[in-house]
């Protein structure tokens, strides 16, 4: 199969929610996420109407990904705590769960693990927007799902080639499709009017120096690598990406901080292995 053109890929990825292979429930969620006049109240009503979705939202919001001090038992309370941008991202992550599993075995675990790591690092460096960092971790690889849905045969080939040639999945994507998941994911995030910090975290999570790295980009960049080192989930290849010096300097972590971060991530993974993963 020939490589599609850049313009065709972009068009197809941006119209992802109208593809016939997308389950109706996901199409509905994507419509809500992308709607121009969406508000916290409307999202809360939408979630509350669907029992299965409500249960998933409450499970995730009460998991170590967020680390709220006590039990959150209602959707209205959950949406107030997390805020609109992070809530849209979380809904996207939840809606993509089944498709993540289909695209790549282990990608959901990698995404959850990265979200947990992002939360732990965000708390350590002391940023206010901890939920934004967690959500950025949860959906940083959403472009892999988008490419997998839009080009299922090509993406199977991407996964096979990355394995055969022992290369990064990003290299195989660029080689076979012509666009990598970070760029494809950012198209979606922009189309769905995600907050800029979320769009940038998706687009620059492998090369934060291309943009002056914000704290959130640097956090997702480090979380992605840490979760690979810790052997949790699978994101298309087993290789850690080099942490860029500018991102590392932005975070200003010490070796002792890192060891504490490893410990907290491991504890969170161990405690939740049977429930949310």
């Amino acid at each position, binding site marked *: 199969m020939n490589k599609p053109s850049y313009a065709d890929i972009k068009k197809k990825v941006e119209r992802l929610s109208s593809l016939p292979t997308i389950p109706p429930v996901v199409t509905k969620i994507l419509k809500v996420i992308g709607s121009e006049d969406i508000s916290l109240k409307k999202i809360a009503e939408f979630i509350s109407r669907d029992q299965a979705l409500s249960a998933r939202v409450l499970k995730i919001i009460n998991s170590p990904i967020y680390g709220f001090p*006590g039990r959150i038992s209602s959707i209205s309370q959950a949406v107030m705590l997390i805020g609109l941008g992070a809530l849209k991202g979380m809904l996207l992550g939840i809606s993509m769960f089944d498709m993540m599993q289909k695209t790549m075995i282990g990608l959901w675990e990698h995404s959850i693990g990265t979200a947990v790591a992002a939360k732990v690092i965000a708390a350590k460096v002391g940023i206010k927007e901890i939920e934004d960092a967690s959500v950025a971790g949860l959906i940083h690889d959403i472009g892999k799902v988008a490419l997998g849905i839009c080009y299922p045969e090509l993406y199977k080939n991407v996964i096979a080639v990355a394995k055969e040639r022992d290369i*990064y999945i990003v290299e195989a994507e660029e080689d076979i499709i012509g666009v990598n998941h970070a760029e494809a994911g950012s198209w979606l995030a922009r189309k769905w009017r995600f907050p800029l910090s979320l769009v940038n975290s998706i687009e620059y999570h492998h090369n934060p120096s291309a943009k002056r790295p914000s704290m959130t980009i640097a956090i997702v960049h480090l979380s992605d690598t840490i979760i690979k*080192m*810790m*052997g949790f989930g699978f994101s298309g290849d087993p*290789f*850690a990406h080099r942490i860029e010096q500018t991102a590392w300097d932005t975070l200003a972590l010490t070796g002792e901080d890192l*060891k504490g971060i490893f410990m907290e991530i491991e*504890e969170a993974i161990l*405690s939740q292995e049977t429930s949310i993963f």
Partner: protein
Amino acid sequence: MKLIDIKNAKPDMRLARAVENASGMILYGEGMKLTIPIIEKFNSLDIDSVYVEGKSEPRLSRERYLGIADIAFSKISNNPLMNEIKKDFTEYINSLYE
């Protein structure tokens, strides 16, 4: 300190962090010893996990952790920062088995 699923909570374990409600009000204080009624109360409040005193069993064997890290770092082994991070990770993994 370890975070455990409420399914694995047992009497005589001690809370290593207070359990709070959504408004941050402390329901059970740090150091409190768990009893069956308290664990049942956690279940009725839909509390999924709590921090208790003690050390968790590692998820993988030491060899497996270090083997995964060796592969993860194989493409970036000439980078001083990554070597430093790998050293910290190795020390952390070794500490799990002391």
